[in-house]
């Protein structure tokens, strides 16, 4: 019985790992990059100055002035106060019909930054929903959720079968050297960061729990997700459909920010939400930053927008809300600074490599024996190349697109994203047409060269790597240097594969 349980878990581990591994590699890779989403966005927007020291009251005056002139009829304004991580002044406004617009300004001069880009947010979106807006089409979001669940199942079944593998660990099998090497790689990358793998897979589900299994919302909120989210977030939003009151100027925001910071006992404010601006029922909600706390839910103070009186401080929340926001925060990692982010990045790379090693192991285990379904096996080999190397090509192609596409072009965001998906599609076709080994060598070389060559494009936007280093622009420089290190590794793997192939071709002769 015990023996057969281990065998069924081995079967489950193999097949759930193979089918979801193709999706998971891309999700984990973009998630790993998304750890540094704010750094990538900063890199993608060379116009943003990082050496600013804006006076907050003046920055808020710039923001207010811009919104009064450009978003007078909006249902809500959002002002994101600049921080060292996001040094531009970001303004977002939502129209009564739900459409929202984002603009970034220089926090000292008020100059508009024309470039439209998602930057690092693209990787965040792909990681969470495969880049498909879940409010329009939930497919991508549900696939990622299923992949997260599958990852947990693979972790548990992997632990069950590992007991046997541990015994095999000390058996020397020189004839199966390649297979054994991949097995050992997969084991090491799985076991050492196992708590990270399982924690991230579970907290990823917790992050948007209500959207995966909405039964609780159905039972207690009659299926009204918006009503549930208002209750869960305890936000002081004004309904878009409610008619705003008569015209009444909203009070000056700067004193409210000072009072909010006093009310929550220190720590800077980052977000200001003004609902129904300049109307009688205006509400102002100010959010504390969350970079020094694990919880994904910042302290919030709400004010009456017309009188400026404090309506409600929201500092303590119920146990369930707090638990969920801490689990979500552990996943989202806005806390812990660069040390924590680098640790997450390295663990994330290990997750990617674990999946890659597993997919390659599936092929290595079977390539010496006769396979039952040659067409299926051939498809697995091609999909492996596209899912692993092709995904890496797609990610670095996105970076190239950010540098190559001019900032003035209309529909720029969609165009940049097209580079990602087009590069991936080309890799998929290429993997299908080329012999397996050649496809690996060529796609890894391409990804490696594109990574290594990324700094070549910096001069084109006035931010060359030497200039970044000379001016102490460490965030942008780190993006390019990290790309170069990854590129060197990928190129080295590609060259090694090419050498092995040449040697075995000589042997065959």
């Amino acid at each position, binding site marked *: 019985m015990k023996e057969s349980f281990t065998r069924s878990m081995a079967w489950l581990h193999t097949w759930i790992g193979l089918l979801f591994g193709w999706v998971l590699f891309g999700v984990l890779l973009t998630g790993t990059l998304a750890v540094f989403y704010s750094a990538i966005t900063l890199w993608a927007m060379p116009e943003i100055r990082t050496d600013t020291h804006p006076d907050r009251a003046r920055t808020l005056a710039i923001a207010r002035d811009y919104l009064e002139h450009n978003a007078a009829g909006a249902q809500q304004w959002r002002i994101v106060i600049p921080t060292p991580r996001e040094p531009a002044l970001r303004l977002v406004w939502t129209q009564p019909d739900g459409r929202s617009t984002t603009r970034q300004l220089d926090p000292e001069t008020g100059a508009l930054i024309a470039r439209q880009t998602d930057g690092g947010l693209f990787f965040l979106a792909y990681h969470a929903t495969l880049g498909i807006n879940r409010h329009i089409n939930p497919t991508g979001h549900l696939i990622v959720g299923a992949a997260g669940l599958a990852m947990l*199942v693979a972790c548990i079944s992997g632990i069950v079968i590992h007991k046997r593998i541990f015994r095999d660990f000390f058996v020397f099998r020189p004839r199966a050297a390649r297979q054994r090497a991949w097995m050992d790689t997969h084991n090491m990358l799985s076991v050492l960061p196992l708590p990270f793998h399982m924690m991230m897979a579970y907290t990823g589900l917790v992050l948007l729990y209500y959207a995966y299994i909405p*039964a*609780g919302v159905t039972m207690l909120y009659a299926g009204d997700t918006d009503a549930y989210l208002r209750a869960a977030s305890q936000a002081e939003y004004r309904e878009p459909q409610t008619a705003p009151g008569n015209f009444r100027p909203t009070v000056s925001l700067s004193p409210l920010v000072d009072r909010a910071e006093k009310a929550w006992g220190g720590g800077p404010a980052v977000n200001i939400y003004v609902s129904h601006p300049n109307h009688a029922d205006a509400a102002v909600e100010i959010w504390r930053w969350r970079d020094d706390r694990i919880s994904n839910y910042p302290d919030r103070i709400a004010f009456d927008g017309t009188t400026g009186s404090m309506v409600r401080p929201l500092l303590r929340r119920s146990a*369930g809300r707090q638990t969920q926001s801490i689990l979500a925060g552990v996943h989202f990692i806005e806390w812990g600074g660069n040390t924590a982010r680098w640790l997450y990045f390295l663990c994330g790379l290990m997750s990617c490599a674990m999946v890659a090693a597993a997919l390659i192991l599936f092929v290595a285990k079977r390539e010496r024996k006769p396979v039952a379904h040659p067409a299926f096996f051939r498809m697995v080999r091609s999909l492996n190349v596209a899912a692993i190397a092709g995904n890496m090509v797609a990610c670095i192609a996105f970076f190239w697109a950010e540098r190559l596409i001019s900032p003035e072009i209309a529909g720029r965001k969609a165009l940049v994203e097209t580079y990602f998906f087009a590069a991936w599609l080309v890799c998929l076709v290429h993997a299908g047409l080329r012999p397996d080994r050649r496809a690996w060598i060529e796609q890894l070389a391409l990804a490696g060269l594109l990574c290594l060559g990324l700094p070549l494009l910096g001069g084109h936007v006035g931010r060359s790597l030497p200039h970044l280093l000379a001016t102490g622009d460490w965030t942008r420089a780190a993006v390019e240097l990290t790309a170069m290190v990854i590129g060197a590794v990928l190129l080295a793997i590609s060259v090694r594969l090419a050498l092995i192939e040449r040697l075995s071709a000589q042997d065959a002769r």
Partner: protein
Amino acid sequence: LAAAVSPGEIVARVLAAGPGGYAVSYAWAGAMAVIVPIDPVDAVITATCTAFLVFIGVVIRAFSVASVQRLFGEIVGATLLLGGLALVFRA
């Protein structure tokens, strides 16, 4: 699951693990949300975040129970029981 499992059985187990697992965890979340006597938002959070663990349990069970018939019996039974509890406690 030996190598010589029929494709039909594999399809059956995949259906039990995927749609079956979702049905049980959906019913679990609905039932727990109304049974646990706490703040409604906390109840939804607790019910849903434990439902993921139920889902994982069903997937593992779907590929380890020897009899497919028994597997479907368990899944239908658990869904009906939890769904029934949800409706009883809501009323």
